[in-house]
């Protein structure tokens, strides 16, 4: 029953990805916690956190793919939703420090004492409760995306213009969060976290559990994305991507469909940020940096947009590359990233997964021709993308 329900909403590739993610959510913590350090299969804690960080990026990439790959909304500001989710989690973690801070104030975080503040700003109330913070992780990015999208999509801002204002959005938030009187720790952001849900945030077990949570949330995001894309709503979204005015003349309120998927995507990005912060131990305004959002676009492009799974591969691969190159040849990393983007745009317009897809169709085509029967012209997967169109 449940498996049947599952497979009506997820294709084979999505099912494999979900199964793999659930498996690593179990196996990586087990290997880290149970195997002796001498074992070749033992995964050291630093690596668990590193991969966990990559998986939060992958979650951001899946969120971005949902709007860009399937609905044609190129957001160059998705990092803003990621960072807002991260700040919501960071605020909870700050409140958990309690009197263990440098100034030992039972209520006020250190930076507020340092700024000579006497009481907690109103928007910090409630963040001592994990579930309140967890709610804000999705509500704050969701509300911002809803308001922003409501204005932008109703006014029919599309294409390059929309991309530019998303970029402006994240840049405006960057400047705002840099200010000390915003009340989010200014330049230094939020850090020195002690524990989460009562567990020491530095402990190996906590790290492993955070990793498992990330992998499971990523699996959930794959499921939610698949559910949306395989529904009639998903078909409408792809229709909007390919021929927006046609969709309107069929009687669909295009702006509402965009608003729906845009808000869902922002919430996913918020969850990604919330999982990122406890694993890296800090959140500061540099997360709003426009370059971060553009990098996320590159992950999706490299993995293959409009494929759900591709962005995960893209995010993990590019970030492994980044970790390696920035350590081994720090001066060439940005060149490598730039070259990667050019290569993908020129030679792999559908990304790594698209390359795999077209290779498979080619094989099927050859096999069909051998049998001398006309090949069905349906591509194996939904990777067909129209040529990028200029804004109207």
């Amino acid at each position, binding site marked *: 029953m449940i498996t049947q329900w599952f497979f009506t909403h997820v294709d084979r590739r999505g099912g494999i990805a979900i199964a793999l993610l659930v498996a690593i959510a179990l196996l990586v913590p087990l290997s880290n916690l149970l195997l002796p350090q001498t074992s070749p299969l033992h995964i050291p804690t630093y690596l668990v956190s590193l991969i966990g960080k990559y998986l939060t990026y992958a979650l951001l990439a899946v969120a971005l793919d949902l709007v860009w790959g399937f609905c044609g909304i190129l957001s160059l500001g998705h990092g803003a939703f990621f960072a807002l989710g991260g700040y919501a989690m960071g605020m909870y973690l700050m409140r958990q420090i309690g009197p263990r801070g440098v100034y030992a104030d039972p209520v006020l975080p250190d930076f507020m004492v340092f700024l000579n503040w006497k009481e907690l700003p109103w928007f910090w109330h409630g963040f001592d409760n994990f579930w309140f913070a967890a709610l804000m992780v999705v509500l704050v990015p969701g509300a911002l995306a809803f308001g922003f999208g409501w204005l932008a999509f109703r006014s029919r801002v599309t294409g390059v213009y929309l991309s530019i204002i998303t970029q402006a959005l994240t840049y405006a938030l960057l400047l705002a969060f840099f200010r000390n009187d915003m009340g989010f720790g200014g330049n230094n952001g939020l850090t020195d976290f002690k524990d989460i849900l009562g567990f020491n945030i530095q402990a190996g077990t906590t790290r492993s559990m955070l990793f498992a949570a990330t992998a499971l949330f990523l699996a959930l995001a794959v499921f939610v994305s698949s559910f949306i894309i395989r529904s*009639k*709503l998903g*078909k*409408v979204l792809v229709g909007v991507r*390919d021929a927006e*005015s046609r969709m309107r*003349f069929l*009687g669909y309120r295009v702006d*509402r*469909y965009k608003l729906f998927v845009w808000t869902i995507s922002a919430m996913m990005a918020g969850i990604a940020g919330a999982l990122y912060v406890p694993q890296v131990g800090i959140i500061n305004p540099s997360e709003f940096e426009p370059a971060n959002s553009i990098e996320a676009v590159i992950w999706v492009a490299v993995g293959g947009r409009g494929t759900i799974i591709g962005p995960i591969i893209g995010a993990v691969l590019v970030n492994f590359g980044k970790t390696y190159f920035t350590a081994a040849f720090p001066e060439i990393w940005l060149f490598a990233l730039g070259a990667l983007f050019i290569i993908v745009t020129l030679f792999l317009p559908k990304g790594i997964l698209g390359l795999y897809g077209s290779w498979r169709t080619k094989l099927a085509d050859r096999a069909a021709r051998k049998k001398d029967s006309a090949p069905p012209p349906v591509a194996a997967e939904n990777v067909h993308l129209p040529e990028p169109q200029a804004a109207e």
Partner: protein
Amino acid sequence: MKAQDTLLYLDGVSVSFDGFRAINNLSLVLQTGEMRAIIGPNGAGKTTMMDIITGKTKPDAGDVYFNGEVDLTRHDEAEIALLGIGRKFQKPTVFESHTVEDNLVLALSGPRSAFSALFHRQSANEAERIEDILYTIRLNGKRDWLAANLSHGQKQWLEIGMLLAQDPKLLLVDEPVAGMTDAETAETAKLLREIAKTRSVLVVEHDMHFVRELDVKVTCLHEGSVLAEGSLDFVSNDQRVIEVYLGR
């Protein structure tokens, strides 16, 4: 003539873009069940007229009524589509990365809200209607094809099929036979005459041969207003029509 007895009623409609009068005091009336062909040289305002009827462009002046009572200038594209006006574009516009069948599923009349679409399940009735349309547009053997892989003529037909799925009272059809072979053109004329038995149709077309096959009343537009109206023979013998359009 009074607006309430008509299906489509345009009176004194004008619109300009940057000082250029695309539509100039245009008046046109379509009866329920009527098929009308619109001809005219490039820039005569044919496509702009369709934009006004479907809500894409708001006129600067004039009345546009549908069904005798609905003021179309107060509604947007989606609302007008739901009122029962379907539109076929000049360039065939289908959803290329969807299959033929999914194109029809999206067009099929029914609830249009995002929530209902998320949990939509196809009913037996809907499946049957899609089957009928696939048969009508002669694409039943290609239902699983991606629309991108159809020939130009087949895309035109699929788009007409999508209009049928929408179940409109009025179809606006912009150059349906552009780029079609002679055989396809003849088939399309047949299809449109078939459709016109149950709905009203407004066809914009350059192909005089095709217009003759439709065998309906013709309106010739020029510089944004009506130049001549009547049977094809009457219009094509009009001295002014010959001068501006049919060629000297």
